[in-house]
């Protein structure tokens, strides 16, 4: 028994290492590129723009971090623990902004809020102002504007994970807190919030990684971040290695941040020690508090989803007739197929790696999986280069081998195919799936594993019969997060795709990049619409993930 278990652990450990290695290859390729000498990029940057890039990047991250934490956690607590009009609708609608790409929302709000836009125009008409020197209006294309845009579309990560965590909490901890005399607010800050920490941290770090790799929004808003610097060094100074060095430094910072957070809670455990799950208590809000809660929940939905969708719809009415429907159907088909393939694979790989870590507990396995899911923090186009290099090397090696041995040329088997694009998506979005699975597994007390194993289950059996039923909601959530993000993905698709291959996102980009958003509004709207149904599914999955409510009788029991 013992020796079989040991063997099994090793097999999982090795398997996990191999998969993590495959997923980490592109990031390693970027690091390798960085090793080459880049003629005094650093001296130049340090003397000139690096302090500015660093300041801007930190300010952006701080702003978005605080923003998504407040909006995401606050909304999650409200809809989970309080009862007020519309709560059931808010519960899923709060996820909707996830379907809106950041660069689209940036374009839309610029159109709406800039000097020549309808808002300022109406204000001028109303107050009789004649020119820009007569009044002050916040400039949307600014650091604050970028923080607002990214908070609006990224808070759903925190919301989704925080809500799942609040739903999964045992009622006992809360009751103890109330028994000990704490009110609802203190119970939230001193019990529920600390217990949800792993989930919230993952949500915030996902949002921050996405902030770091964003280029479309900051470029459009003329906010010069580290990422803008990476592209500048790469394209304007023609230094791939210099860009890779900057990207590597950024990665090290991200890894350090994650490690610091983990270190800070190294002695803390977050799984629930009881399996008593009754219906959560809920506070019924009336009058003013209810109105406040409705406003707090409605504002992010209206600003992050309703307004951009309405504007896109408005554009679409004019341009829909000019949209080539056959082509449009193909782009939609391409987007949907690619995204669902990536979602399925990412969920499988994420689960495999997260469970491998739980079984193995080896430092190497742990470190390898963390590194493998770091691709999310690398700017997309840079990561695409990281995908191209090892794939092309593999293809060329196979070609040379086949040429030598069999005298046939196989050409490039993987490079420039949909397989390459899918691989790129996996590498980029694995963090979403791995993080979700990891957080979900952390809630399952190790004594469950122990019990299952004592009763004779091998690791795979325990996974199937104990963990999977408990994690069902999180697995669906992981797949849907990857699906929605893949629908929006742009830089990797552009660089890695085959000939004559368009997705909705690439089709939108060719117009949006020339600030002709009106002409591709139907396709942009389609990206958003395609995300709505999965997002609603996601909400259902999160609600059902509460063990006591739905699944408690399954599994071992």
């Amino acid at each position, binding site marked *: 028994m013992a020796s079989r278990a040991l063997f099994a652990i090793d097999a999982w450990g090795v398997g996990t290492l191999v998969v993590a290695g495959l997923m980490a290859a592109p990031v390693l390729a970027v690091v390798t590129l960085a090793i080459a000498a880049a003629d005094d990029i650093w001296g*130049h*940057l340090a*003397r*000139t*723009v690096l302090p500015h890039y660093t300041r801007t990047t930190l300010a952006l991250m701080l702003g978005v971090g605080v923003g998504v934490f407040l909006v995401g956690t606050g909304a999650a607590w409200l809809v989970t623990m309080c009862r007020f009009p519309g709560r059931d609708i808010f519960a899923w609608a709060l996820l909707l902004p996830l379907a809106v790409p950041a660069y689209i929302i940036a374009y839309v709000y610029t159109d709406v809020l800039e000097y*020549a836009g309808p808002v300022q125009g109406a204000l001028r008409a109303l107050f009789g102002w004649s*020119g*820009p020197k007569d009044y002050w209006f916040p*400039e949307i294309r*600014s650091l604050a504007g970028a923080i607002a845009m990214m908070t609006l579309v990224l808070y759903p990560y925190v919301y989704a994970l925080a809500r799942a965590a609040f739903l999964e909490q045992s009622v006992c901890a809360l009751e103890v807190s109330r028994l000990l005399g704490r009110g609802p607010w203190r119970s939230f800050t001193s019990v529920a919030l600390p217990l949800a920490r792993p989930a919230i941290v993952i949500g915030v770090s996902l949002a921050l990684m996405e902030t770091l790799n964003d280029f479309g929004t900051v470029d459009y808003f*003329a906010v010069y971040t580290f990422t*803008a610097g990476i592209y*500048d060094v*790469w*394209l*304007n*100074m*023609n230094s*791939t290695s210099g860009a890779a060095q900057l990207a590597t430094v950024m990665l090290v910072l991200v890894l350090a941040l994650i490690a610091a957070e983990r270190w800070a809670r190294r002695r803390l455990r977050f799984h629930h020690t009881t399996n008593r799950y009754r219906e959560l208590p809920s506070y019924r809000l009336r009058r003013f508090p209810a109105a406040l809660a409705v406003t707090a929940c409605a504002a992010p939905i209206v600003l992050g989803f309703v307004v951009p969708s309405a504007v896109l719809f408005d554009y679409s009415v004019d*341009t829909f007739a000019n949209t080539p429907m*056959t082509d449009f*159907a*193909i782009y939609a*088909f*391409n987007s949907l197929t690619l995204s669902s*393939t990536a979602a399925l694979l990412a969920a499988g790989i994420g689960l495999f790696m997260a469970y491998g870590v739980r079984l193995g507990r080896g430092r190497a396995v742990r470190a390898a999986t963390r590194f493998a899911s770091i691709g999310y923090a690398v700017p997309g186009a840079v990561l695409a*280069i990281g995908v*191209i*290099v090892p794939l*092309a*090397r593999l*293809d*060329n090696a196979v070609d040379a081998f086949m040429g030598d041995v069999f005298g046939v040329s196989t*050409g*490039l*088997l*993987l*490079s*420039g*195919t*949909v*397989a390459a694009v*899918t691989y790129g998506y996996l590498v980029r979005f694995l963090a979403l799936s791995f993080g979700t699975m990891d957080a979900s597994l952390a809630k399952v007390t190790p004594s469950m594993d122990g019990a299952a194993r004592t009763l004779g289950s091998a690791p795979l059996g325990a996974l199937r019969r104990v963990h999977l039923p408990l994690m069902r909601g999180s697995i669906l959530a992981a797949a849907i997060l990857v699906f929605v993000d893949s629908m929006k993905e742009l*830089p990797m698709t*552009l*660089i890695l*795709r*085959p*000939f*004559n*291959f*368009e997705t909705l996102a*690439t089709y939108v980009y*060719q*117009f949006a*990049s*020339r*600030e002709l958003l*009106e*002409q591709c509004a139907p396709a942009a709207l389609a990206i958003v619409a395609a995300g709505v149904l999965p997002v609603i599914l996601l909400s259902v999955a999160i609600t059902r993930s509460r063990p006591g409510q739905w699944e408690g009788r399954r599994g071992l029991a």
Partner: protein
Amino acid sequence: MNIFRSLMKSLVPNPRTAFGAVLLAAVLGVPGNPDPASAQGEVNLYSYRQPFLIQPLLKAFTKKTGIDVNVVFAPKGVLERLKAEGANSPADAVLTVDIGRLHDMVEAGVLRPVASPTLQKNIAAQYRHPDGLWFGLTVRARVFYVSKDRVAPGAIASYEDLARPDLKGRVCIRSGKHDYNISLIASVIANRGLDEAREWLNGVRANLARKPQGNDRAQAKTIYEGLCDVAVANTYYMAAMVTNDKAPEQKMWAAATRIVFPNSDGRGTHVNISGAAVTRSAKNVDNAVRLIEFLSEDFAQKLYAERNYEYPVKAGVAPHPLVESWGAFNADSVNLAEVAKQRAAASRLVDEVGLDFGGGRS
């Protein structure tokens, strides 16, 4: 059925790159049955240029020659993809919108020389590589849009004028890091040397009305709004605004401004090219050369002029009447390869001067 065939074609563009598509098709249970390549063969393009701008030209080429054109459009990373794919790369030719990318590809050694009498006849020497590594197909001038109301004719006539103290708070420009501005600054370095260029750019920064941002059209808009009086922009955007029926407010922006060709009486206005090159890895070299030749001939040159409002590179083909109405100008005669060599220096200069952080308003 039609949609289905198109789907398959989009998934399986050509046999060399089809493996992944076939794999996916197999997974999905779709029979992998690509259209056979046309009898005349094909040519594979990596393009920096948006497909909707070049599609009419490519369709015309296929109609005339029977050669199929397959395209990947990517705004960045094409060079790295070419380098990594090496001799097995499926790309036969590259289309760019700027001299910078062509120059980088020359440096990386991924292009092959082409000796074509047609191209040499159609394209003036300053708009093609001396050894035939790349060819310019259209010319765009980097000009000033000036306020009709607030700038007297002749008052601002050269790039050097942008640094003049009396223009303080009146100059608008997009990010100094944009390809078009990098090329302009590189041309100043090529003509005047690095030190004079630095002094000039410092002067420009001091005159900025706001932090550099937006695209070229946005600069015209700011003049219309009264925020600035002179902006740097490419010629064809003016035509695109004048004729924009889909966003008619742009006509008002255009109407508020007038085009000035800087330095036309001196060393010439800075021009950039969109261009094409044949890759070293090309398998369909003849088809690639035929395509580039086709793009340099009257038919395609006229189409470029009519649809994109660019200046045809071929002598004797007239620009769009609207473009012609702005008047003739002399172009900077320095070979663009010399300008492209100064791009990295120009980019560093933008950092040193802090051009993108200038301007009172953020």
